[in-house]
């Protein structure tokens, strides 16, 4: 019994080491698929945010934008990218608190840090697609696969291609572009 315990402890060491290795910039999962590392961005855990914001669009993780972006966005919900997205005052405060407490500047997740590093003079971008990091990550994808692809239509529709977007994982291995297939650059 004791022996088996020690054996499993010893076996776990190389597994852990392998799991935390990752190749290149775009992998969340490391070398071993079954060993899940921290996702690139903190997943959404707030049910109110999921319900109020996620019923119209992909529930973008708060870690994609800095605090001031969320503050500005929440103060303009009556004209939210051309849509009315007003929420009642109690929910408004709760959603704002969630966004602010989990914004990119406060997150230690890898992609939030990358976003923050890429902001430059943009202090409060209103679109994730405006950030340097986002642009850099998507600059090789032709229009024909996004804007001119009915099943994608816009880079704003994260989960059209990123299969595990909801879980906060945007690794290259999990990209499937509708009508095209896996993406590999």
């Amino acid at each position: 019994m004791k022996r088996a315990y020690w054996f499993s402890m010893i076996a776990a060491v190389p597994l852990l080491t392998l799991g935390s290795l990752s190749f290149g910039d775009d992998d969340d999962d490391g070398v071993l698929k079954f060993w899940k590392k921290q996702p690139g961005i903190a997943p959404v855990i707030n049910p109110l945010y999921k319900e109020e914001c996620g019923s119209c669009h992909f529930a973008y993780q708060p870690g994609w934008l800095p605090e001031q972006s969320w503050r500005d966005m929440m103060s303009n919900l009556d004209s939210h990218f051309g849509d009315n997205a007003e929420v009642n005052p109690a929910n408004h405060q709760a959603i704002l608190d969630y966004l602010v407490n989990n914004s990119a500047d406060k997150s230690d997740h890898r992609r939030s840090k990358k976003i923050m590093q890429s902001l430059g003079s943009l202090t409060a971008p209103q679109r994730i697609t405006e950030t340097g990091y986002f642009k850099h990550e998507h600059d090789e994808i032709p229009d024909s696969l996004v804007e001119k692809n009915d099943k994608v239509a816009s880079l704003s529709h994260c989960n059209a291609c990123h299969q595990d977007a909801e879980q906060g994982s945007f690794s290259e291995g999990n990209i499937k572009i509708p009508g095209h297939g896996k993406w590999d650059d």
Partner: protein
Amino acid sequence: MKRSSSLVMYTVLILSAMSVSVRGLAYGSVASDVLAGYQQSGAQPPDPERARVMWTEKYPDDNGKNTRSCASCHTENLRAAGKHVRTNKAIEPLAPSINRERLTDANKIEKWFKRNCKWTFGRECSAQEKSDFLSYILTQ
């Protein structure tokens, strides 16, 4: 043995019949409370036909072209799934006959009337219009 198993069957049947009727009552009562509220705020009895016509009437978009209607996102068939015209996000069917979750929460009814009337018509709906729409959706 046989007797006890048929007893179990009866119990299951009775319980499931009860839960169906309770659910039916639940959505019926929420919607009728909301309808009663509209009448208290001055609405006449609802007219589902008026709402049916308004459902597909087109109103100006941001460019001033008449392209917007309820059907833009919900389609003309309330029993079918819709799609957010801008974000492509799937919208479950509105018809309570297909989707039992619909019209079971008064806060949600008001929230969506506010958002969607403002987007579609550029203003909030009157108690009469909401009453008409609600009665129309209930018949679907």
